């Protein structure tokens, strides 16, 4: 990835951007997010199969100083996250340069967000058979089995909120779970509190989730909570033809409606 380092150096020395969000060598063989602000640091940048963190999460954290131009190294999920965030008016195109990396590890310099949108729509956007199989496995259970399965999984949760923190779409300054007047979500991590939290997380990400699986990867207890949002993404695609991270202009599925939306359960 010498080309990436070269590009990073150029961008920083021409002052086209002030910070590059990318990856560096971490500890114990891991890669990790890195923030590069001078050309001589650019040599620490890496990109390989270990670089799986969704870096879009840093674009909305308001941690980066204001009025700085940021370049972000964008794998495919990061590109989709950026499109979703942009469609929700969370990102200013003038301050973000996206350095895309294709599946075969080539650098794509995007001119603007519309350019990313075009690129995304040229790719295969369908759910993988592996993803489908994970969902099918739970769908095939009886109602009681599903209840038991999720009760078991949720009972392990201790509410560290790594799932929320790692998710680029969870950018609310006041999350519903921190809201205490009224106290919507029971705070303690007992079964009810965990159940309410995970439903809220999934519902607030319903159809907005771009499927990077960062939530369950970040989870120290390996809870398969990515399946909740994945299930809803599939459902929303099927019912309303909407998929997150693919369009800058199409209205979000739950912010709009069609009079002829088909359901089978309303009497």
């Amino acid at each position, binding site marked *: 990835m010498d080309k990436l380092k070269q590009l990073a150096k150029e961008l920083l020395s021409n002052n086209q951007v002030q910070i590059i969000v990318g990856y560096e060598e971490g500890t114990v063989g891991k890669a990790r997010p890195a923030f590069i602000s001078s050309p001589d640091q650019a040599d620490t940048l890496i990109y390989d199969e270990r670089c799986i963190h969704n870096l879009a999460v840093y674009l909305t954290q308001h941690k980066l100083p204001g009025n700085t131009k940021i370049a972000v190294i964008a794998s495919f999920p990061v590109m989709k996250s950026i499109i979703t965030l942009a469609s929700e008016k969370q990102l200013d195109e003038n301050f973000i340069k996206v350095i895309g990396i294709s599946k075969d590890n080539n650098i794509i310099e995007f001119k603007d967000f519309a350019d990313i949108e075009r690129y995304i729509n040229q790719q295969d956007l369908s759910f993988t058979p592996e993803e489908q199989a994970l969902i099918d496995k739970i769908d095939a259970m009886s109602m009681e089995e599903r209840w038991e399965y999720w009760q078991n999984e949720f009972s392990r949760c201790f509410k560290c909120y790594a799932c929320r923190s790692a998710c680029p779409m969870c950018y609310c300054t006041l999350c519903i779970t921190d809201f205490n007047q009224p106290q919507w979500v029971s705070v303690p991590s*007992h079964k009810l509190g965990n159940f309410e939290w995970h439903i809220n997380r999934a519902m607030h990400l319903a159809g907005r989730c771009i499927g990077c699986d960062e939530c369950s990867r970040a989870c120290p207890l390996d809870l398969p909570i990515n399946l909740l949002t994945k299930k809803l993404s599939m459902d929303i695609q099927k019912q309303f033809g909407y998929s997150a991270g693919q369009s800058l202009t199409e209205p979000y599925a739950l912010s709009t409606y069609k009079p002829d939306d088909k359901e089978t359960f309303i*009497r």
Partner: protein
Amino acid sequence: MNEFEPKVVAFVCNWCTYAGADLTGTSRIKYAPNVKIIRFPCTGRIDFMLILKAFAKGADGIIISGCHPNDCHYTSGNFHAKRRWMVFRTMLDFLGVDVNRITFSWVSAAEGARWAEIVNTTVDGIKKLGPYDNYRKMVNEETEVNNG
């Protein structure tokens, strides 16, 4: 006489179903007394958390009802609600929540008899399903959770 009497909470919109339920009363139509009606400005206002809170506080069944499509007082509140219920129902079903305990319906201000019918069939349905023990068990879990 120890028949199980379910607690049913109805979340209804002010303009159609609430008025419809009023008509049921003024028409002197008898219906199951198990239902507690909560009036909302519009079905679009009924957050999914309200449903969960009702279950957590002891409801065995839930009715959500508002204006028929195209009749919404605010033009599109019920259409938005419909989409939300379509998604939320999927979510609940995926988590193993018994979606048969939730009745969704459109009841207009003129449909007093229909409201009685909706409540009666819902209450009958819940009587067959029994108390919502699974949810109770989750709520009443001993809070001294140890690690592991």
